[in-house]
């Protein structure tokens, strides 16, 4: 049995592992994919103290090596369930089960999908969730971005430098994202903003070749031929498997204050999957430190 199991090896989870190891607790980190999490998609981090520029991959590798160096164990299996038996929590993966006195949920979030037919099949064949990753494939081509937050605005600006034509499709009549980016976009000649509209159909053969966009006000449908569709409609926290132990808000985020305590004693939550106002690298690592410190206290009290 471990003292603490951390679920998720992103910045929050790995920082929790570092703090727990420094408190001399045994730590297992379970991760479904690879260490790093969402920050892997960031080519250049410029707002984390100490380094002016570092890639998300290099950042993650350093934190991973730091946690391993301190003695945290990493196993790459997806946690699908936690059974709470009071002093003992059992974390179940498709292959094994692991026991610990305390669990920290640092599962983060995943890209929200549009929910359209064929969306999964066309991912990588015209549909992308990461403009900075895949924008280069669309040089001098026609693309659309769906969404109205900062990510959507930044994606559209980034793509406007590469693509021949960019459509930005937003379901409302104004942007949630910041005004500077919106103003920059409006000044671009190769950007057309389509307000009050939803993408309602993907038209494809082998690849995506067009989309249908439905106007929410008058119901009119417009077909746009394009090469790429970039989806930036937010993220979904990955708490579904643990809803039995953790209270979730309407959007699926785990309800917990700054101390990272959940509704279940000995279960803590850290990072992007927690209710909070600012989801950044620095707030994720801060959560990791806090959750680990509280988990250590809990283990010591048993």
């Amino acid at each position, binding site marked *: 049995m471990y003292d603490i199991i951390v679920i998720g090896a992103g910045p929050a989870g790995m920082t929790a592992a570092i703090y727990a190891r420094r408190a001399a607790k045994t730590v297992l980190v379970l991760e*479904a*994919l*690879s*260490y*790093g999490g969402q*920050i*892997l*998609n*960031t*080519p250049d981090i410029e707002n984390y103290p100490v380094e002016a520029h570092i*890639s*998300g*991959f290099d950042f*993650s590798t350093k934190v991973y090596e730091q946690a391993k160096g301190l003695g945290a164990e990493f196993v*790459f299996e*997806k946690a699908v369930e936690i059974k709470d038996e009071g002093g003992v929590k059992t974390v179940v993966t498709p292959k094994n089960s692991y026991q610990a006195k305390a669990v920290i949920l640092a599962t983060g979030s995943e890209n929200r999908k549009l929910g359209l037919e064929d969306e999964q099949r066309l*991912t*990588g*064949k*015209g549909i*992308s969730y*990461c403009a900075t*990753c*895949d924008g280069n*494939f*669309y040089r001098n081509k026609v693309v659309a971005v769906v969404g109205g937050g900062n990510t959507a605005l930044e994606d559209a600006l980034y793509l406007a430098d590469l693509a021949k034509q960019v459509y930005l499709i937003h379901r409302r009549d104004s942007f949630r994202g910041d005004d500077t980016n919106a103003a920059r976009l409006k000044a671009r000649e190769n950007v057309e903003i389509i307000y009050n509209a939803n993408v309602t159909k993907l038209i494809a053969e*082998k*690849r995506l070749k067009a989309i249908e966009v439905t106007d929410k006000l008058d119901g009119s449908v417009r077909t746009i031929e394009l090469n*790429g569709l970039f989806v930036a409609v937010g993220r979904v926290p990955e708490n579904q498997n643990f809803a039995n132990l953790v209270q979730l808000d309407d959007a699926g985020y785990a309800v917990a204050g700054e101390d990272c305590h959940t509704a279940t004693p000995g279960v803590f939550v850290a990072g992007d999957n927690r209710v909070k106002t600012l989801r950044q690298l620095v707030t994720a690592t801060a959560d990791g430190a806090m959750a680990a410190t509280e988990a250590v206290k809990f283990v010591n009290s048993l």
Partner: protein
Amino acid sequence: MSVIEVTKANFESEVLKSEVPVLADFNAGWCGPCRAMKPMLDELAEGNTAYKIVSIDIDAEDELAEDYDVSSIPCLVVFKGGEEVNRSVGLIPKDAIAALVEG
């Protein structure tokens, strides 16, 4: 075997005319998820004779990327007898990578 770097020049001999199945990793140095997957591919390639794993840098080999319609990376394509038989886009765990080629 270890992971083999493939370019347009040796794509035919290493991939299309390979006697064993080939797992082709289309990637780029600036792509974080691609870099995260590299160690998994290295581990799978080590001592493996059932299939081979090749790496294709899409910036240097943009023609290959275009020929195989790669527009999102990391992109893993499995070739058997010179034909594409399977494909996966995005970061996936090691077991899932192995399952792509082992079926």
